[in-house]
């Protein structure tokens, strides 16, 4: 197959770790969001609504607007600070690392529909690189001499500036772009003609993509503040990690035996959430501290997004990542604390979520290593390839290889267990569903020490070997 259904495209999908294999969580997802909720009613009812809106952290406001929908956005958008507006552009106006003007227009049109003057005002508040970068590919300007040399039908495509010595046109047949640029220029001319002369001059004269390249650097730096690290750093979160050192560190910490804290043992609640509830109910932490820890999970989801092929504006994708990282961290927390709630609380408020996450992944690596050694007996060449792909963080290619080279030898069930094991986020086989002879394994994210044991047991059962790989 070619194009979107090529091997490369499917491998990329497998590489995300959350999009391809069927998985569902056993745990409640209520109260789980990428950021603390924003009370729009309180903002609008505030004495100074603009001040109240601008006090909300940039990304929290962006996520709240996106999830709230355009009805909410219309009331709040006029109140935003320029930094909050730039955050919207940083998240929405890009696709695959390139400026995506249609996405920007979607937001800026909301201002235009309120009042054309708003469009000029808010556009001007964007970084200069955004202003020029948006127009740069689409603006053509000529002086009087060049204009006179043009054929009449070409001249008709140009519009005169107020001075009648310069003419501009939009270099795009796209009606939305034409309408947007024209509206922007018209509203700007009536507000500040000098500004639009400078802007159009820069947009027409600067080399193509120069501003976009510069802007990309600024945008990446801003996104990094919200946890969106580079793809390399993101991939590193799934790589080598000295789990032994962290485990030993926390094993040596004596638990406060005087306290009698315990989680309720509700099977529908993640250990992580149970520990947070205990923190709140016993007064060990206040809501602000708990919110900060929760925000840390949002940052972690953002941090893994680069490796998982999720864009900063993909709220559904980021929510799936948040779910995955919370399960993984919950497992890591349970192992590090040996299920001791007091110790778990200390870990949670001491270690960064990413450290516990990396520890959890490194713990599962012992099962992966055991599986590889078992597969060596079956097919040394393919087992070596699988090991190499796993260790170099090419999880999508690893899953593809399992389907292609191990399915026939191992059979459906074993191959699926292996795929869950070598998935970017480790998954445990939950059930098999079938429709007219077509079978599909439904997985659950690895979230507890019981899940770890089940995965280890499945690997040994299906691969028919038994050596090493025990959980500490």
């Amino acid at each position, binding site marked *: 197959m070619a*194009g979107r*259904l090529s091997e490369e495209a*499917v491998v990329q999908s497998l590489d995300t770790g959350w999009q391809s294999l*069927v998985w569902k969580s056993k745990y409640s997802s209520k109260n789980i969001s990428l950021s603390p909720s924003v009370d729009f009613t309180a903002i609008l009812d505030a004495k100074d609504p603009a001040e109240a809106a601008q006090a909300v952290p940039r990304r929290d406001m962006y996520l709240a607007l996106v999830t709230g929908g355009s009805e909410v956005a219309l009331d709040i958008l006029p109140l935003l600070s320029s930094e909050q507006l730039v955050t919207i552009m940083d998240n929405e106006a890009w696709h695959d690392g390139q400026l995506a003007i249609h996405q920007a227009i979607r937001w800026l049109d909301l201002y235009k529909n309120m009042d054309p003057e708003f469009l000029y005002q808010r556009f001007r508040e964007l970084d200069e690189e955004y202003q020029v970068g948006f127009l740069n590919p689409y603006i053509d300007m000529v002086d009087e001499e060049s204009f006179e040399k043009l054929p009449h039908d070409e001249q008709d495509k140009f519009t005169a500036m107020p001075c009648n010595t310069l003419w501009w046109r939009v270099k795009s047949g796209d009606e939305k772009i034409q309408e947007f640029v024209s509206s922007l220029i018209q509203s700007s001319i009536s507000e500040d003609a000098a500004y639009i002369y400078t802007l159009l001059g820069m947009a027409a004269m600067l080399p193509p993509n120069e501003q976009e390249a510069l802007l990309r650097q600024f945008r990446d730096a801003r996104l990094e503040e919200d946890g969106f690290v580079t793809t390399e750093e993101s991939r590193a979160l799934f790589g080598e990690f000295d789990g032994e050192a962290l485990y030993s560190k926390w094993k040596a910490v004596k638990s406060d035996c005087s306290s009698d804290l315990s989680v309720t043992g509700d099977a529908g609640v993640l250990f992580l959430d149970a520990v947070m509830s205990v923190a709140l109910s016993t007064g060990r932490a206040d809501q602000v501290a708990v919110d900060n820890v929760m925000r840390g999970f949002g940052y972690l989801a953002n941090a893994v997004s680069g490796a998982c092929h999720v864009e900063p504006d993909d709220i559904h994708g980021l929510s799936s990542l948040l779910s995955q990282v919370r399960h993984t961290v919950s497992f890591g927390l349970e192992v590090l604390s040996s299920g001791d709630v007091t110790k778990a609380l200390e870990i949670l408020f001491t270690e960064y979520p990413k450290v516990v996450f990396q520890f959890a992944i490194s713990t599962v690596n012992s099962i992966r290593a055991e599986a590889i050694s078992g597969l060596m007996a079956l097919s040394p060449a393919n087992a070596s390839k699988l090991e190499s792909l796993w260790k170099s963080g090419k999880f999508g290619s690893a899953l593809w290889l399992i*389907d292609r080279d191990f399915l026939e030898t191992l059979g459906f069930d074993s191959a699926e267990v292996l795929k869950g094991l070598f998935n970017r986020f480790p998954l445990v086989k939950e059930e098999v569903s079938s*429709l007219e002879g077509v079978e599909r394994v439904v997985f659950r994210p690895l979230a507890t020490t019981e899940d770890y044991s089940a995965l280890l047991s499945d690997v040994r059962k299906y691969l028919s070997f038994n050596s090493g790989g025990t959980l500490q």
Partner: protein
Amino acid sequence: MSSGTSVELSQKNQLVAQLLERKYGAWLGQRFVEVESHSDGAVLTIKITLRNRDKSYVYPIEGRIMFADQDMTADETRDFLMDFMDAYIQEYLSGGEETYLTIDWSNYDCDGVELQLRGQILNVNLEDLAEQLINGSEAVH
């Protein structure tokens, strides 16, 4: 114009169904993909159906393209239409399943190539039950 024997075509369709299930497994959940295609020489039609076990959710997504309008081989035309339909499926699944097609054919233009799509989510299970109910009541009267 043909892009292979009916057996080859059936195998290709099965492969596409497998690839789509692999690509979008997490979003599909317990739903499965079926792919059918046929060509009458002038028009290529592809139907990709997403459905669950009890048929309470059946979403046939149909696409068609005129061979004569394209400067492409039969296989290229098929891949082109499949790519476009896949792009829609990704948008539909990744966007919370809120992007719908029209019930009747709608025209699309992709890189200067014209094609048509249509689709409607059905609850075949409920329709079957309703039919049984109607037939049953007719039998009583």
